[in-house]
């Protein structure tokens, strides 16, 4: 017997939880919360530090959660995560290229002539180069995996492995060339952190996130059909090739920019869809929105933990998600007798 909670109730509950969490978490922080005697500093902390950070955590978590659900549906593989299409490794390469080679690109000379441009570059070149790296890598992977008869998911995985190790090799060569400060910067980027959150970053990320959602949500029916296999999805009249393109584009748009901004945040993309399906069943009409909401909820709390564990210092949130995500994943595995029940 299978009994499922009503999709409406699931979304409603998650939505309410997210709103309550966001409001509650807003009162938590190293500064404490002093609404009664709000000075301009507490106001500043809430308006300019916590709120943008919470907003960033929500769209980052949502992007990773929903991308994970799309990837696992596209590859019909419970282990699939957004990293499979090369966005993350590409973003890592992009940021590394900039961090290591940025200074030798003549930016210092530039700064003397165009201080404004220099200021902009200083702030946005890391995420920008990450995005470029991510999108280029995914594009490369796509062109390799495309055949006359269409896009093969197996080829995507194999190409992804090859491109992944290739980008890792280049990143490795670069880190070998990198000086100590750059190495430390790269290390901190690879651990993932939302500490640099601000409204301008959020405003830049939001259009990517919304575009990705607009691309991804219409895929829910075809993702369900895809669970029957590619052949059955075609037989049901779905535009399967277009679907694969849209799925990859959507995931790249959702994850590439956030990864470039906040660094590598592991396990949300893999664990969240599993957690969701455990409750909702495999229907993507609910798995997609529920994964977005659950991802947002989890990252919000993980980041709160990152902020609160060792004040006034912080722990990179990537460490927290990995430290919580890995045991959660193991627990999920022990709960299911067969691997197939996971998917």
């Amino acid at each position: 017997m299978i009994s499922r909670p009503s999709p409406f109730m699931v979304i409603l509950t998650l939505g309410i939880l997210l709103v309550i969490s966001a409001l509650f978490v807003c009162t938590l922080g190293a500064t404490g919360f002093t609404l009664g005697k709000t000075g301009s500093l507490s106001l500043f902390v809430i308006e300019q530090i916590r709120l943008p950070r919470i907003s960033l955590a929500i769209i980052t978590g949502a992007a990773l959660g929903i991308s994970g659900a799309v990837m696992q549906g596209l590859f019909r593989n419970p282990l699939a995560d957004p990293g499979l299409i090369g966005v993350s490794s590409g973003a890592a390469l992009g940021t590394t290229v900039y961090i290591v080679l940025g200074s030798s690109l003549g930016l210092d000379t530039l700064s003397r002539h165009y201080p404004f441009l220099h200021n902009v570059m200083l702030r946005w070149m890391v995420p920008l180069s990450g995005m470029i790296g991510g999108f280029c890598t995914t594009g490369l992977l796509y062109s390799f995996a495309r055949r006359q008869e269409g896009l093969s998911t197996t080829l995507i995985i194999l190409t992804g492995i090859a491109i992944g190790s290739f980008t890792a090799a280049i990143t490795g060569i670069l880190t070998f060339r990198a000086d100590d400060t750059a190495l430390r910067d790269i290390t901190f980027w690879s651990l993932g952190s939302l500490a640099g959150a601000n409204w301008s970053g959020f405003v830049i990320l939001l259009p990517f996130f919304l575009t990705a959602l607009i691309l991804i949500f219409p895929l829910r029916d075809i993702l369900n059909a895809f669970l029957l296999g590619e052949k059955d999805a075609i037989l049901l009249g779905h535009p399967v090739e277009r679907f694969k393109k849209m799925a990859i584009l959507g995931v790249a748009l959702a994850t590439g920019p956030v990864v470039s901004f906040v660094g590598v945040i592991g396990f949300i993309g893999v664990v969240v869809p599993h957690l969701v399906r455990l409750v909702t069943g495999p229907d993507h009409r609910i798995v997609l929105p529920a994964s977005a909401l659950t991802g947002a909820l989890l990252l919000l709390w993980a980041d709160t933990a990152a902020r609160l564990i060792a004040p006034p210092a912080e722990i990179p949130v990537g460490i927290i998600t990995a430290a919580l995500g890995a045991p959660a994943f193991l627990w999920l595995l022990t709960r299911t007798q067969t691997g197939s029940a996971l998917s």
Partner: protein
Amino acid sequence: MSLIFENVSYHIKEHNLVGEISFTAHAGQIIALLGPNGAGKSTILDLAGGLKTPTSGKILLNNSDIGTISAYKLATMRALLAQESPLTAPFSVTELVSLAFQSLDHTLTMSQKKHLLEEVINSVGLAEKSTRNMQTLSGGERQRAHLARILLQLAANNRPTESQLLLLDEPLSAQDPAQHLMILSLIRHYVRKGGMAVIILHDLNWASAFADHIILLHQGHIYAQGPPGHVLTNATLGSVFGLPSFLVKQHKPTNRPYLIPHDMLSGLS
């Protein structure tokens, strides 16, 4: 509905999977594809379903070239039951069957949908298991759930049964004898309403009992086709399946042939 193969061949590189296939099938018919393993039965079914494009020749569905029909329109015209499904998601039977609704535009109300869903699950004998997880069902039950799903795919859209085509790849493979009869009756019922079915079968007796037209395949080519009495003879079966292992007899009331294994005869004599 009419399905016409005109000199259809299909190769993968130098391998000729099927060659020079020609036949015509009409609404109200059950067409059985028979032949040994590797004779090209599944390839013909995939070609008829539009999953494969012929290397040469033409396939006409309702008199239009199947290659010119959009994937979406094709989905309202034909449904295909594959031999096996790679599904691992823990859908319930009802959830699996209702995936057919999601794929196609329809104007059905909630209660119409519910009614159709119950009817089609009932028709494959899974009414009592409709809320069960697919993974906890037997292979035969899963196969019938998928059968219900593709029946719903055709029933859920507005296209009349007369212009629809059911393609079944060994629908009896995982079923017990009682289910053989149930499923074939179900298909016959569908065809009597005006539909058409092309079925791959291995059991020659069931094929003889239910098929209106049998296509006997051998090494990618049609060896013989026609009504059961014309195709199922000692001579054709002997050359297609190798050793003469059956004795073909005539069932007087229906004039259809039936087969008795040779061993049984030798044991009797």
